[in-house]
């Protein structure tokens, strides 16, 4: 019998995004989100038990450059700190585990990166199999397009559905002050635009974004003190598939399905979902894996098609669901984060507001 889990909630969230920012460096992006997320929680900075971040040295091209982000946090007297070379959604997972184990009662999580510094679609080729894939230099968009082709060939989706996902996302992004892309274009308008990476159009591909985001987690009574309506994490799980593209069924996201089952997505109504969809075709694949009913609103923030600060995008999905719960718009929602080519590794987080 597993021990009862501690109640852990999101009690602060902030994001700071830009389109190809030539002025600020990473630290300057992080400073306001850390300050704002902590201020929302009301927890004094040096009372926060654990600091975990997610980023990737390859975004800026220097060894250990990621660690410089700590300048924005205030790490003296020394703090308990960790970081993962992954989207900060996984940093949040590590923080959640640390709270569960009882080491700490609160955590600050931040994710950041400037995708505009290098050729970000080329950089992540270094994550591919070093013998049989990487030396060919396929870009992340190339691999995503292969998955889109497979999904269309298997009737999991079609060109019109991709355009509808893109249209809805871009329209929603217009209403999101943090989004860097967004426009009012119907699916028909998008379908008339050129296909740039068969079968994907530019509108199907997330924009290059610079930025940072931060979340504060707190447990039990500390969370109740920190927030008038904490967004409780009821389940958080992640699963990974093999790296080799050809070994996987690219038309389904089995790891998302398993993570969703383990996290208890189906244990209650899903009133909103924020999915880490950097490409339109990923939405129908993930909807199916999560078992979302057709009427569940997906990515009301606009999702990654509106802003994709790689290494913070997944964390922001958790923050966007938490925001809607704390605002009282919804009572229960699902956030999803992904890493690796073609949805290789997936994290599912179920959040809920207290009903009382």
């Amino acid at each position, binding site marked *: 019998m597993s021990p009862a889990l501690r109640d852990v909630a999101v009690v602060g969230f902030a994001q700071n995004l830009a389109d190809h920012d030539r002025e600020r460096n990473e630290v300057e992006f992080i*400073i306001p989100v850390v300050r704002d997320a902590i201020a929302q929680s009301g927890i004094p900075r040096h009372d926060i038990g654990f600091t975990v971040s997610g980023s990737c040295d390859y975004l800026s091209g220097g060894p250990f450059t990621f660690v410089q982000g700590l*300048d924005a946090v*205030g790490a*003296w007297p020394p703090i308990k700190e960790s970081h993962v070379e992954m989207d900060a959604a996984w940093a949040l997972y590590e923080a959640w585990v640390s709270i569960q184990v009882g080491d700490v009662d609160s955590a600050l999580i931040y994710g950041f990166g400037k995708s505009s510094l290098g*050729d970000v679609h080329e950089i992540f080729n270094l994550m591919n199999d070093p013998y*049989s894939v990487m030396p060919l*230099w396929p870009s992340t968009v190339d691999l995503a397009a292969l998955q889109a082709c497979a999904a269309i060939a298997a009737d999991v989706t079609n060109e019109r559905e991709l355009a509808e996902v893109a249209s809805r996302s871009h329209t929603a992004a217009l209403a999101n002050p943090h989004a860097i892309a967004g426009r009012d274009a119907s699916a028909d308008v998008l379908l008339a635009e050129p296909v740039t990476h*068969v079968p994907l159009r530019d509108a199907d591909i997330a924009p290059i974004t610079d930025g940072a985001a931060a979340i504060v987690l707190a447990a039990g009574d500390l969370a109740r003190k920190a927030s008038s309506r904490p967004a409780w994490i009821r389940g958080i799980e992640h699963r990974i598939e093999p790296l080799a593209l050809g*070994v996987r069924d690219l038309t389904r996201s089995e790891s998302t399905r398993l993570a969703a089952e383990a996290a208890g997505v189906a244990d209650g109504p899903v009133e909103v979902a924020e999915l880490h969809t950097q490409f339109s075709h990923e939405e129908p694949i993930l909807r199916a894996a999560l078992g979302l009913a057709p009427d569940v609103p997906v990515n009301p923030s606009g999702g990654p098609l509106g802003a994709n600060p790689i290494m913070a995008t997944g964390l922001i999905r958790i923050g966007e669901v938490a925001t809607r719960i704390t605002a009282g718009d919804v009572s229960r929602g699902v956030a999803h984060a992904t890493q690796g080519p073609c949805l290789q590794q997936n994290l599912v987080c179920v959040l809920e507001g207290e009903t009382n």
Partner: protein
Amino acid sequence: MTEVLLEQHVLEYPGGYTRSTGPVVGRFLTGLRDGRFEGIRGGDGTVIVPPTEYDPYTAAALSEFVEVGPAGVVTAWTWVAEPRVGKQPLDRPFAWALIKLDGADTAMLHAVAVDAPDAMSVGLRVQPRWRTERIGSIRDIEAFVPEGSEPLVVPSPEPDAEPVTGIVTPTRLDYEINAGIAPSKYLRGLAEGKVIGQRAVDSDQVYVPPRGSDPTSGEPTEIEVEVADVGTVTTFCVVNVPGLSELAPEIPYVCAQILLDGANTAWFGLIQGLPADEVRMGLRVKAVWADELIPNAASIKWFEPNGEPDTPYESYREYA
């Protein structure tokens, strides 16, 4: 000077990154060098191509190799309208495809050389075009082509050639990085012959060079403070490894942490102007500026003794 400070930066492993292959990948690449494809049988009987050392579902070690191909079928494809020349397999537009070779149960990625996307389809049968010179690399296949569109030239393996045990992969990434707002102020100061540090509003700690925040509090360092270009050596290192420094071509040379007067963090710089064995903690030094000042740390070439008496240890001990 108000233009944004940008710098071209290259991340590259000179000569290429070397990797050993192990016996399974080595056998696959040896096969490619010999003009042959080999997969491996998984625990459930399916043939995995390229071969993996372990079963992806059970983690059991695998060992039964199976020859597959050379032709196969496209299971998914996309088009590259603007190839990354010098990196991707072809210099002109081409297709990527996942190709299930005959006899394989999994698909592998490669390029298909056709003139236009309308030549591609799921289900298209393709065959490899082997390079004349093969070394044991996934690139020993120049590209795949539609089956029958050209003769399939099957290379003859070199007799007595040693199995492939390693690969060398040229790896280079290019970046354009920016300094950031706070560091830019400091860099522009250097271009004017000044060292400008920064501190946060509620702190007296002056950071040189500044990165935009006070690392103890996370507060932005909004106040600029000019510090002297004169300071104290707090600690140092005598370097005996040749070729590391362009400015100090002779060894031994000394690099040091120099606490500039007015700063609370030390500057890492070169010491010149006295024998290496006379450099000491507490030595008072002054900056020697370059003839041409630019917004770059290279504007200060090195530090030399300025003749002042040594700083007593007690006054800089917390910086040592």
